[in-house]
């Protein structure tokens, strides 16, 4: 019964979404207030009904109602509760429902908190949001109904893929979706602004918090996914340039560009048309990602099932959304009032260059992702594009971007002083050269690219610190005065510093872990030892172990450093009871400069096991860097300008001639 209520609620949500997609739009065009005002209750109602629908599905998973097809396929009565709940979004149908729910959540948030938005803009943005919503609810109802029944109901279900039974992965999809789907808000506002024919600083101030929130969640989601791959798959790697990984990385790159260009619109009223285009493209990449993951055109670690009908449907949505909005853009963008002027060497100029570099880098990732597909469809044979391609294309484009990120924040708006900025950065430059030199010296100059990467990371970190020190006039005025300035700096400034520092730390980690990872594979008997770097691993023995729904072989390694006991490692090889597939549980011990990483393989039946040991330099830096970026985003979100009710005050500030910045 609850399932039918869920199904019915989904249909009701569709009806509301359709009403929300049309009436407010007409209302805004004809000036009918009542129709425009309809958007708010419709958005809230749509969200409420989707919440009911989603609640019904989660309930079915929790009580293990095997008469529901998706529950039968992905749940088992013995599965721990948290993975029963996670199973509700661990498959195509349920995760699509979550997708739609988050889409409606963003609409509801704008409807609820957006009372200070101009009524027309709000009505139009919510209408566009509802168009996307209707399309995806239709998609769910027609091609991937999560409420389909199974008759007769089986007594026991299959299980959630054991690889997915992991706390990190339980939260990875919702975060990733908030990121992906959140960009829809920027898209809706962009289309609304195009219909309106007007975009100004206030528009950017309304759009930025939503973009920032999505960016924060997407960053966190990607990092969680990479971390999951790192410890669950047991390959010692965390990023494989897999098409599905790229599908989440491309919206991230474009979203990062959008965040930066929206600053220019907000502060300087320039780059307006470009920002609208970015908002459209960013969500376009989110839709492309959805298509790649759900259509079955690619096979990959994270891909969902293969069903051409679904692929065609999403391709249709993608074509309509992108085609429609880009046509609108081509038609309306020339009518936008031209914005402020700036010299090429200026903050605006550096942000523009940042955007161009990000867009170009995204294009190379896009090509690498789609080329094998295109070639296959055209009958050109099967090829695959791997890490070497991205090292040869993406990395050279990312490097100037990092160099720029050190200089840009020190340039003034409108006309910057490049010489002055570089002069202030001499310490950062010196440190970067020193770091490059040290990195070259460590491996005798074998990996020049990696040394340059380390140098760039140090450069960005030091430059970010310099920028903060300049703001508080550290060492120029008394420490007390600097401290007072530091306290009064806007949170957005701290947000930027944290996020930039995070990226710098992550880059150092990424570079070191991809260049200087070492690996040892061997067959080991108890008391054998493997030495990597300054650590030696002694296999103590392998014993059987038991979990809630699996049995395992658990190895025990004693790790010694310089003859002293360092730590114990317990890698496992698990066999889940329902699905007969072994999974690897790596044992990882982190220290400041890297990870110890041990994996146990198959036994040869004669008392020896295949063992893989990795030394993973600076991998914890990657996670800390991502955490810093997320933190920076959150700090920036908490800035007073973005708080509820703040826009009214900010408008007053804006009326004053360019105060401060």
């Amino acid at each position, binding site marked *: 019964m609850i399932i039918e209520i869920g199904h019915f609620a989904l249909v009701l949500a569709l009806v509301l979404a359709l009403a929300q997609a049309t009436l407010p739009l007409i209302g805004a065009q004809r000036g009918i207030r009542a129709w425009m005002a309809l958007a708010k209750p419709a958005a809230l109602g749509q969200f409420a009904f989707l919440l009911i629908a989603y609640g019904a599905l989660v309930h079915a998973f929790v009580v293990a109602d095997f008469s529901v097809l998706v529950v039968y*396929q*992905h749940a088992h009565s013995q599965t721990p509760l948290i993975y029963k709940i996670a199973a509700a979004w*661990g*498959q*195509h149908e349920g*995760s699509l429902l979550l997708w739609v729910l988050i889409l409606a959540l963003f609409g509801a948030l704008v409807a609820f908190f957006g009372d200070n938005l101009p009524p027309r803009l709000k009505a139009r943005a919510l209408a566009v949001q509802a168009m996307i919503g209707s399309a995806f609810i239709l998609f769910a109802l027609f091609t991937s109904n999560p409420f389909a029944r199974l008759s007769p109901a089986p007594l026991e279900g*299959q299980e959630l*893929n054991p*690889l*997915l039974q992991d706390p990190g992965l339980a939260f990875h*999809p919702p975060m990733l979706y908030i990121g992906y789907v959140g960009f829809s808000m920027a898209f809706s506002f962009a289309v609304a602004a195009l219909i309106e024919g007007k975009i100004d600083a206030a528009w950017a101030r309304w759009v930025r918090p939503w973009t920032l929130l999505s960016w924060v969640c997407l960053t966190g989601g990607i990092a969680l996914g990479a971390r999951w791959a790192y410890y669950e*798959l047991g*390959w010692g*790697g965390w990023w494989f340039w897999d098409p599905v990984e790229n599908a989440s990385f491309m919206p991230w790159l474009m979203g990062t560009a959008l965040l930066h260009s929206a600053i220019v619109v907000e502060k300087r009223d320039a780059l307006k048309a470009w920002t609208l285009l970015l908002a459209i493209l960013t969500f376009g990449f989110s839709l492309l990602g959805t298509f790649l993951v759900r259509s079955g055109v690619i*096979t*990959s*670690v*994270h891909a*969902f*099932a*293969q*069903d051409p009908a679904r692929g065609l449907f999403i391709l249709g949505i993608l074509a309509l959304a992108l085609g429609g909005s880009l046509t609108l853009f081509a038609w309306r963008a020339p009518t936008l009032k031209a914005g402020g*002027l*700036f*010299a*090429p060497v200026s903050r605006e100029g550096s942000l*523009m*260059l940042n955007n*161009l*570099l990000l867009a*170009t880098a995204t*294009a*190379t990732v896009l*090509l690498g992702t789609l080329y094998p597909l295109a070639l296959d469809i055209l009958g050109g*044979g*099967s*090829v*695959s*594009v*791997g890490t*070497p*391609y991205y090292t*040869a*294309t993406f990395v*050279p*484009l990312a490097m100037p971007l990092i160099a720029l990120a050190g200089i840009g924040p020190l340039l003034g708006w409108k006309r910057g002083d490049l010489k002055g900025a570089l002069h202030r950065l001499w310490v950062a430059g010196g440190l970067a050269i020193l770091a490059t030199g040290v990195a070259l010296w460590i491996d005798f100059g074998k990996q020049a690219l990696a040394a340059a990467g380390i140098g760039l990371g140090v450069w960005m970190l030091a430059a970010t610190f310099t920028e903060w020190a300049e703001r508080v006039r550290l060492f120029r005025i008394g420490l007390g005065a600097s401290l007072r300035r530091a306290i009064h700096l806007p949170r957005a400034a701290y947000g930027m510093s944290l996020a930039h520092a995070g990226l710098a730390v992550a880059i150092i980690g990424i570079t070191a872990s991809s260049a200087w990872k070492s*690996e040892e*594979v*061997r*067959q080991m008997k108890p008391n054998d030892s493997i030495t990597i770097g300054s650590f030696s691993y002694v296999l103590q023995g392998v014993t059987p172990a038991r979990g809630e729904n699996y049995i395992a072989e658990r190895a025990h390694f004693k790790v010694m450093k310089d003859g002293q006991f360092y730590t114990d490692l317990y890698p496992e*090889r698990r066999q889940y009871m329902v699905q007969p*597939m072994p*999974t*690897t549980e790596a044992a990882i011990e982190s220290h400041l400069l890297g990870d110890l990483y041990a*994996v146990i*393989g198959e036994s*040869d039946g004669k008392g*020896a096991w*295949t063992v*893989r040991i990795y030394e993973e330099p600076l991998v914890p830096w990657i996670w800390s860097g991502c955490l810093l970026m997320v933190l920076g985003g959150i700090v920036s979100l908490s800035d007073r300008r973005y708080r509820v009710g703040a826009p009214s005050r900010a408008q007053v500030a804006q009326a004053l001639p360019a105060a401060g910045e």
Partner: protein
Amino acid sequence: MKRKTLRLYLVLISLGLLGTATALVLNAFDRELVFFFSPSEIAAEQPVPGRIIRLGGLVETGSVTKLGDGATFSFRITDLKASTSIAYRGVLPDLFREGQGVVVQGTFNESGNFVASEVLAKHDENYLPPEVAKALKASGRWQEGAGTEASPAASPGTTQGTSGEGNSQ
């Protein structure tokens, strides 16, 4: 600064970047693309030694042997028409089995032996890599619905969110 000058700068920078990116991509496509071969194609014409390629098919039954050091494997990949022998040092994926579909990545060395650097097999009992399915079809040994095809109806396992692609280096 006039609007026109600004626009000129932007166009020039964009063109420069686009040119750089195109050059990088073309260069990378030229050198880094990894082509897929089936054992029959290898038998017809052996690829250049040293070039990284992918090779896929079924693991020939009874061909897997472990060499003395305990971590180097030797096996044959077949498309039921021709077969190629592979040497691989490392841990085989959890679902590497005789008779199962597999894709290996590596190079032919000067003496004509294939040395794999990666062995990829899906983390799923019923999965057959699409390239392998295609190669088997091409060799005329493919039977539709023979149970090896990854059809969602036949094997609910493949409909899951993540059927991990085992990749061991």
